């Protein structure tokens, strides 16, 4: 999750880098004021993008745009359809087997972020619904609901707030064969590892996502269409996974389609705890672009050490991140006071080849080091803290982040 202030003190928010990079952005619009100020557009959304990202109607304090009631009506109707679908799925799940009761999981957290002297607070709820229907179908969805409390800015004292509600994914999964699953609906873009694996607030070690998150995920980090995925081979020596998708995501604004396609494949060696993978994404709309990427994960067997890394390349920029964490469970066990601590370190570097306002990377070469310390309480509660130092020719900055997350998991009803 990331929060930053720019553009007349307006605070922009993102969860796990998704909204920061325009997870729900339908039309990429950059605030001119931000563009004029070097270093200020490195991070975060702009006023226009926030309004597009937020599926709530524009708040009065957000600007001069008037309500578009037709658009509002469309949004309300679509949201009602989504809720109705989720309820219907939950009801259908009653006929599932003894171990297939639909579940509700997710995380609830409270985060704070101090960036450039401005502190922002975010209570967040991220529920997950999974409902099996019969032996071969699963419907699942994840949403993000939050309220951002940020300084008013402009010399005014006090805080103001803005709500956010978004569906991260809502998809149906058809288990066609032991090695093939067909996914349809709104899904997380399978590029790299961060988007699909580490965006949940109860999993990721840092509140905000990596700087290169927008590369390959087409900024929105989600697609609407179809995807084929599965495990091609799985043995005790190695396993190979794959995913391929086509998306024709439409926008709220003018119903334009933002077509893209891509996929990824990875091989995992369990004895070494090593995973190596490659991703590819191609934007098929407007100026076509290709985004290759690679990732390496190394998690030694029977060791709490983890190393995760990704590299992504775009037409105008490229970058990588390396993250390591080591839970101190060797010191008295995982439930001891020391054993609950988990130091985390992440290094990032981005390179700007040519100006491009659409890839969401910083406008200049940037290096960033994130130092984190997580503490795992009992009963699925975790505290995350981190300090980040970012170096760039447009200005250096410090970012302090703290948060507490509770992960929940329970059945929708008692079941059989």
């Amino acid at each position, binding site marked *: 999750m990331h929060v930053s202030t720019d553009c007349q003190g307006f605070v922009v928010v993102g969860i796990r880098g998704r909204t920061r990079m325009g997870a729900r952005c339908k039309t990429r619009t950059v605030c001119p004021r931000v563009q004029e100020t070097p270093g200020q557009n490195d991070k975060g959304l702009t006023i226009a993008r926030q309004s597009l990202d937020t599926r709530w109607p524009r708040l009065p304090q957000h600007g001069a745009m008037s309500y578009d009631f037709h658009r509002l009506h469309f949004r309300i109707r679509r949201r009602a359809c989504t809720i109705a679908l989720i309820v219907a799925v939950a009801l259908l799940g009653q006929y*599932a087997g*003894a*171990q*297939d*009761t*639909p*579940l509700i999981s997710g995380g609830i957290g409270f985060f704070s972020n101090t960036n450039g002297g401005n502190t922002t607070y975010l209570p967040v709820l991220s529920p997950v619904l*999974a*409902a*099996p229907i019969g032996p071969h179908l*699963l419907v*699942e969805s994840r949403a993000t609901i939050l309220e951002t409390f940020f300084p008013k800015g402009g010399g005014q004292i006090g805080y103001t707030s803005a709500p956010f509600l978004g569906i991260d994914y809502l998809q149906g*999964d058809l*288990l066609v*064969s*032991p*090695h093939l*699953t067909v*996914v349809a609906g709104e899904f997380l873009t399978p590029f790299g590892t961060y988007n*699909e694996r580490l965006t*949940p607030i*109860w*999993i990721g070690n840092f509140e905000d996502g990596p700087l290169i998150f927008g590369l390959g995920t087409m900024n929105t980090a989600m697609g609407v269409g179809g995807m084929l995925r*599965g*495990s091609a081979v*799985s043995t*005790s020596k190695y*396993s190979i*996974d*794959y995913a391929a998708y086509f998306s024709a995501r439409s926008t709220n604004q003018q119903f334009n389609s933002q077509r893209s396609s891509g996929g990824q494949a990875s091989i*995992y060696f*369990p004895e070494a705890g090593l*995973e190596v993978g490659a991703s590819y994404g191609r934007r098929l709309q407007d100026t076509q672009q290709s985004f290759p990427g690679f990732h390496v*994960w190394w*998690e*030694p*067997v*029977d*060791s*709490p*050490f983890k*190393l995760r890394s990704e590299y992504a390349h775009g037409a105008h920029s490229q970058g990588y991140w*390396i993250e*390591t964490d*080591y839970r101190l469970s*060797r010191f008295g066990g995982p439930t001891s006071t020391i054993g609950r601590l988990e130091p985390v*370190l992440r*290094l990032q*570097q981005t390179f700007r080849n040519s100006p491009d306002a659409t890839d969401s990377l910083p406008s200049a070469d940037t*290096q960033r*080091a994130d130092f984190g310390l997580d503490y*795992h309480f009992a*009963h*699925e509660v975790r505290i995350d803290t981190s300090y980040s*130092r970012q*170096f760039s020719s447009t200005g250096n900055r410090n970012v302090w982040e703290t948060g507490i997350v509770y992960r929940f*998991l*329970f*059945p929708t009803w008692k*079941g059989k």
Partner: protein
Amino acid sequence: MRIRRFLSSCILLSAILLLALQTRNVAAASAAVPPAASSDKQDKNARPQPMGDGERAFRQNCSRCHQAPESFPPQISGTIVRHMRVRASLSREDERAILKFLNP
């Protein structure tokens, strides 16, 4: 100055890597044991049971990204595994093995 700071960070990362490599050898000697064996600390002669297919599949797929939940009702174990089958691209065999591991 900026490069020096970043180099310092890289050195710190290398130190952590070396620490991990060292602890890996220690970890191999004290490999995790199944819950049944770890709970019976009085029996010093108890041998760690070999890792089954389910535990292997669980470690290979689920534990790579997150810790296992502390507990959950058995009636949702099938849903959890099916959810993980899609998220972690499990094969049908791994899905069955993990389900058996969670519900022995």
